[in-house]
């Protein structure tokens, strides 16, 4: 807790917390990038599960370029939000659940991207690929849910109040 309190009093942490634009900008960027990443992954998963009629999968690779740029934005904005309120997030188990879900989602995204790039189209209709796509949907819904619950489940807001 003492370490978290020390982080909180650094100039950068104070700036992210108290500058309206820095905090709001990070929050908005996080939401926009998250919507894009989750949206693209859900669309690809729906296609792989056959929920939407088949269209060529290989050209979807181009959407992944945009996806990975958005992932970088998620991490940068997430880092800024974490720096603003480190104790609020790091003392909350839901934060770790979100992080685990997000990491799993990105690993699945990377796996699917690799499959789409390397396998012929007809092999992408296999049961294994469908299971991976289903796992992708579950994990992304979990990421969103834990992300929203994060704002309501914290027990500590500022660690520095304890010192």
């Amino acid at each position: 807790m003492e370490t978290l309190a020390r982080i909180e009093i650094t100039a950068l942490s104070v700036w992210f917390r108290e500058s309206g634009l820095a905090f709001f900008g990070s929050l908005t960027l996080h939401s926009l990038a998250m919507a894009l990443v989750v949206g693209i992954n859900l669309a690809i998963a729906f296609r792989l599960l056959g929920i939407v009629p088949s269209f060529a999968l290989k050209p979807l690779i181009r959407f992944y370029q945009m996806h990975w740029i958005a992932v970088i934005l998620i991490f940068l904005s997430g880092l800024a939000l974490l720096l603003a309120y480190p104790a609020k997030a790091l003392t909350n188990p839901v934060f770790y659940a979100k992080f685990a879900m997000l990491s799993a989602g990105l690993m699945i995204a990377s796996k699917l991207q690799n499959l789409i790039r390397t396998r012929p189209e007809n092999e992408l209709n296999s049961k294994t690929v469908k299971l991976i796509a289903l796992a992708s949907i579950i994990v992304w819904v979990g990421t969103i849910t834990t992300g929203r619950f994060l704002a309501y489940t914290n027990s500590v807001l500022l660690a520095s109040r304890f010192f």
Partner: protein
Amino acid sequence: MIELLSSFSKFTGIYTFMNSPWGWPTAESIHFLGLCLLIGCVGVFDLRMLGVGRGIGYLQMHKLVKIGVFGYCLNLTTGIMFLTTAPDQYLFNPAFQTKLLFMLVAGLNMFWFYASYSDQVKATEAATSVVEPAKIIAMLSLLCWMAVIICGRLITYFRPPYHWCWFC
């Protein structure tokens, strides 16, 4: 107006649900999921019209839009739940008003698309670009939904809104 919305919320049980320990965050999660479906399906189709993913047929990709509409329905339902539970927090909030304005523009833009260029776009070859007005529609759609997300964040963030609201 406030009384009417509150009565609706109480009569339908929305108020009780939203004031339960996990009611509000559950509705927020579904709201954001709906938004992701909208961005992932309608937004991806917009990006396709703007030239991303060349080679994917427009007609086939347009099938994704149905899921986007489902996402929009989730947004609308949960949005009504927020509004009717705490109408005074929304009706007078300029961020909410601006959000509704962008939703209206997005809706009109959609009507413009289906009334004029939809058939033409669906008939366009996968390797060919769509006509310029369709690209403008796609760009406008993306910008509107981004603005909706930004305004959605503003609703709870800036109160009072003097930091950003030039018309307040």
